[in-house]
């Protein structure tokens, strides 16, 4: 079976490139699963989503992706993230801390859009690191 060529890039660096069997990402319309020979798609990713790349033999590659796009054409999948972090690189303690702080400010002020944003990001990072949120 054909493989997908996947590239996860953020403006400041290329996070990961390689071959994969399936890519699962979350667009604003909902979860999207890409397998080889998928029709060309250009989708907008949600803020604080988790990207999952299924590979043959290896464990899944998981990354927290904040905003950006997924583009699929001819078995090439590129994920353009504004900021992205591989699950293995997430500092769990810091992310937990950030989540708690954000939740505290949401409780204090329901209208705090900035804190909600922070909370979503922190939650995505924790999920990418394999923690339960």
């Amino acid at each position, binding site marked *: 079976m054909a493989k997908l060529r996947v590239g996860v890039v*953020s*403006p*400041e660096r290329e996070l990961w490139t390689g071959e994969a069997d399936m890519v699962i990402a979350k667009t*604003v319309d909902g979860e999207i699963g890409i397998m080889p020979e998928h029709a*060309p*798609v*250009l989708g907008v990713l949600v803020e604080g989503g988790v990207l999952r790349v299924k590979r043959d033999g290896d464990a899944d590659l998981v990354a927290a992706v904040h905003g950006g*796009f997924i583009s699929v054409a001819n078995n090439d999948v590129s994920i*353009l993230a504004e900021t992205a972090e591989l699950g293995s690189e997430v500092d769990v303690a810091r992310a937990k801390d950030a989540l708690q702080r954000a939740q505290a400010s949401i409780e204090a002020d329901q209208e705090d859009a900035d804190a909600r944003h922070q909370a979503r990001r922190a939650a995505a990072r924790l999920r990418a690191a394999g923690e339960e949120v």
Partner: protein
Amino acid sequence: MGAQLRQLRRRIRSVKSTAKITRAQELIASSRIVKAQQRMQAAVPYEREITHAVSAVLTHTSGVDHPLTVAKEQPASAGVLIVTSDRGFAGGYNANILREAEALKGHLTGRGLAVKPYVVGRKGLTWHRFRGREMFGEWDGFSDNPSYANAKEIADALIQSFKVEDGIDEIHVVYTGFVSMLTQNVIVKRILPLEVEESETPPEGIPPYYEFEPTAGDVLDTLLPRYIESRIYNALLQSAASEHAARRRAMKSATDNANELIRVFTQQMNQARQAEITQEISEIVGGANALADAAAGKE
């Protein structure tokens, strides 16, 4: 010791310490160019992908007019983003940028547009303040090591004023493009209304017909600002690399000049010392002769 000799010694000492400083600056700049180049390289994949995506969307949505791609029929004002450095000691780096910016301003004024400067870098800011020019955006503190967040901040401000009524109708950017360690050129570009440039590689055939999630318009809405951010980020990165290259070159020639001065002064100092010794000897000999003559006369 003669006055001239003392003076020369003092000048040599002072030039030597200047040379030490410029040499250190040169070395620092050289090491930073490498880092700046690496950052430029790291940004290439994202740029390539986003350019690809934008051109793919635009080829298939010729019917969709987006505010950011449509030129106004009667443009009234143009924003100019000028990227300068925070620190000097970089030869003609900032002077070149500001000269080109002035030329662009003349050109735009000739077309009947009001020019609104948006300035990055402390050198550009002081240049504008000194001349009492109004600035519509000011940023500094990151010229030698820009992050994507900086580019985003600038892009947000520019897009914001592009969108509002009575804002700006065109956006140009003036920055220094990094060609190589030895060549950097000032580049003047229009970034809005948008013209998508294919970077280096020509498009390989017609891009595939994409499905859009959620719709082409929505994708374009989020994609175009990202594309502009990426263009600005690229301009900042190239400027940073150019700044270090310009500084390295300026500091290298300063060090060379200082060493040349030291050589000339050392020669002059040796000459002066020799002349002093010769004079002392001839004075002693003259004195001894006079004494000997006087003694001979007495006899």
